[in-house]
């Protein structure tokens, strides 16, 4: 698919969003900040994989995006349970 300037700008914005989230993921003063950054990054990456499918004109990447979203959600919930600690 040939891109026009609007689509190039849209993909550049998605890349910028990923970079900003990655900066917070690296800087994050404590573990919860990194966990929140990882949650946000996973959602942006899921939408970005749908964009990759459009870019390459191949619907195979939509399945990749769906499975990535499921695995990221499970990982985030598991990490949240882990930092919550044991129940009384």
């Amino acid at each position, binding site marked *: *698919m040939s891109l*026009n300037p*609007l*689509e190039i*700008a*849209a*993909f*550049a*914005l*998605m890349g*910028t*969003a*990923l*970079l*900003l*989230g990655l*900066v*917070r993921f690296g800087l994050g003063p*404590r573990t*919860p*900040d990194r*966990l*929140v*950054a990882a*949650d*946000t990054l996973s*959602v*942006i990456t*899921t*939408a*970005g994989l*749908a*964009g990759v*499918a*459009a870019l390459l*004109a191949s*619907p195979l990447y*939509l*399945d990749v*995006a*769906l499975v990535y*979203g*499921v695995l990221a*959600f499970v990982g*985030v*919930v598991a990490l*949240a*349970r882990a*930092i*919550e*600690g044991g129940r009384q």
Partner: protein
Amino acid sequence: MRLAADVFLLLGGLFCVLGSLGLLRMPDVYNRIQAGTKAVTLGALSFLVGVGLLYPQWWAKLLCIGGFILFTNPVGSSSIARALYLSGVRPWTVRESRAAASASAPQQRG
């Protein structure tokens, strides 16, 4: 059709950037959860609508991905916030931040 798809793609990218900027700029982890969840959910859904307008034959899988994002992102962030609160992270307040600022620079703040 192509123009509408481009507008939705741009809107999605813009809201994802705004959400990431909020994630970077907000003072507290709870504020960061808000920025990272609401704005990025809107941005991701708008991006998916843009992809669906570019390729209308993919609507079923895009609907699955969009519904999944719409379902799991609030659940995930609520679970993170609940875990943070239960593990003892207290919300940020303006008074504490002013006290910390005046403790670090007493002659400027008075």
